[in-house]
């Protein structure tokens, strides 16, 4: 069974995206896309695949993949490129394609990975809304919208998209590696590493369930000392992030690069005090 599962798990799952440091060369332009808010609280956008369509898709920030139905995959002639087809075609699954030109409204993204399948939920939505809006043919997910700075405004029923240089690489392996490496062995805990040197030791007793963590020590001559942090302070937030446990505080500081000034809110003598800390390079 284990072997069987392992072989099943060897099939890559999902998509991975790597943050690119380079900025787009041209000044990015912002485009607006109108959407149709439907009574179930979802919204529908108009999508073209390589110039074919338009098709109605649901826009879903909770979807890590993009889905298109076999019908529009055939209609837009993208089905032929499908890779990694499943052995048992459940729900009409035809594998994965990269859509060269994936256009939502007038907003164009290149090489957007999409799964071809008849998702039962999409089908049910389609049946519900077909009469009024036309059939629903899939879900727009992360691989599309991650490439943009995006706003969603339900009151205006519109979204805006500005290319942000965040690249959706088609690596496809992180998740599987995580799963494979954890098979049969004890999974390793994650390590939260501050990005800079603060000069603090924090503690929290295990039976202490109140907000924040205690400052046990402030090391002399450090960023924490310069900011006025004191032993006995209760740290509530670091740069707007809750610090309700020691690992939480480490996670919060992992976002604060050396030289960047951030607010730290501490409780001291029953009052909340806002301090500014600028961590240094160190370990």
């Amino acid at each position: 069974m284990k072997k069987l599962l392992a072989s099943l798990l060897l099939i890559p799952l999902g998509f991975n995206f790597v943050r690119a440091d380079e900025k787009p060369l041209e000044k990015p332009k912002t485009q607006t896309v109108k959407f149709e808010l439907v009574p179930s609280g979802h919204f529908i956008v108009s999508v073209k695949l390589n110039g074919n369509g338009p098709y109605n898709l649901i826009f879903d920030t909770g979807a890590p993949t993009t889905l298109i139905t076999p019908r529009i995959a055939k209609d837009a002639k993208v089905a032929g490129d499908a890779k990694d087809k499943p052995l048992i075609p459940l729900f009409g699954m035809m594998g994965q394609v990269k859509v060269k030109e994936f256009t939502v409204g007038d907003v164009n993204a290149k090489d957007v990975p999409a799964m071809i399948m008849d998702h039962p939920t999409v089908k049910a939505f389609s049946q519900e809304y077909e009469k009024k809006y036309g059939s629903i043919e899939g879900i727009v997910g992360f691989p599309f919208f991650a490439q943009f700075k995006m706003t969603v405004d339900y009151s205006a029923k519109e979204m805006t998209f500005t290319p942000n240089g965040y690249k959706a690489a088609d690596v496809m392996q992180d998740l599987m590696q995580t799963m494979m490496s954890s098979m049969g062995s004890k999974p390793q805990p994650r390590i939260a590493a501050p990005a800079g040197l603060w000069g603090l030791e924090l503690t929290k007793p295990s039976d202490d369930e109140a907000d924040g963590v205690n400052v046990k020590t402030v090391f002399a001559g450090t960023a924490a000392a310069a900011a006025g942090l004191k032993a006995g302070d209760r740290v509530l937030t670091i740069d707007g992030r809750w610090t309700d446990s020691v690992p939480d505080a480490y996670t919060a500081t992992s976002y604060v690069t050396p030289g960047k000034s951030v607010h730290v809110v501490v409780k001291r003598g029953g009052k909340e005090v806002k301090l500014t800390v600028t961590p240094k390079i160190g370990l």
Partner: protein
Amino acid sequence: MKYLLLLGLLGLVFSPVKADEKKDPPKKAMTFEVPYRLTDTKHIHVRVKINGKGPFNFIIDTGAPALIMTEAIAKKVGGKTEDGWTTFDKLDIEGGLSIDKPRGVAVDMFQLKGMNSMGLAGVELHGVIGYNVLARYKIEYDFTETKLKWTPVDFKAPDPKRIVDKNGGQGGLEMIGTLTQVLSMLGGLKPNFTVHPRGFLGAELELKEKELVIKNVLAGSPAEEAGLKVGDRIEMAKGKSLSSSEDLLEAVKKLPEGTSLKLTVKRGQESKDITVELGKGL
């Protein structure tokens, strides 16, 4: 398997709620910066407290009709359930945003159950924030930034209408949560959501081309105890020399507390091996 998992990963959910007419007044227009993380599954994860309890891990999900959380959490925080909706006193979203009297739905989503059983997201997920909360804000997403921007808008969001059977069924997809749970048990997959703080050296450093130079040794720190001195140049860590000081820092940045770290330092012309036991601090 892949496809079963895929089905489970999608945040798309039917409305498990009945419509009712209550509306929430819009808040004054100011922008809140909400810290988020992308999970290993590329879900947008924010932290919330409900009735002051938490923090809990939620996904931002325009594919969900409402604020949805596990039944266990709704119970733990003391939500009041009536007519399909559970009402809470307060929902705090990390970053300073607070919503009075939010309504949500207490239901164990199969998508979250499946992901949690395998630890796929890398974090234990407790619920999703859907339409009935999201519609009250204009939200800016930018994954080159570390925070989302939420600006309240004056929008009386109509309650979501349910479109499927009474059980909130999703055409047989519900079995995926249980199926992944069983499969992960058989495969020996155990999720591990613990986060450990990294170990502390207690030295301020300067990045030079191929070495890390010690600029300051904190009094009472592991660095001082091990005998590191200002001006020492760290050339190797863990017996390895690396091509740049950034690499060197990267190599030692993620060691847990209590690790014995062997450093090779140059002091003047002399080369020394110094072992530091990494302690607690940041």
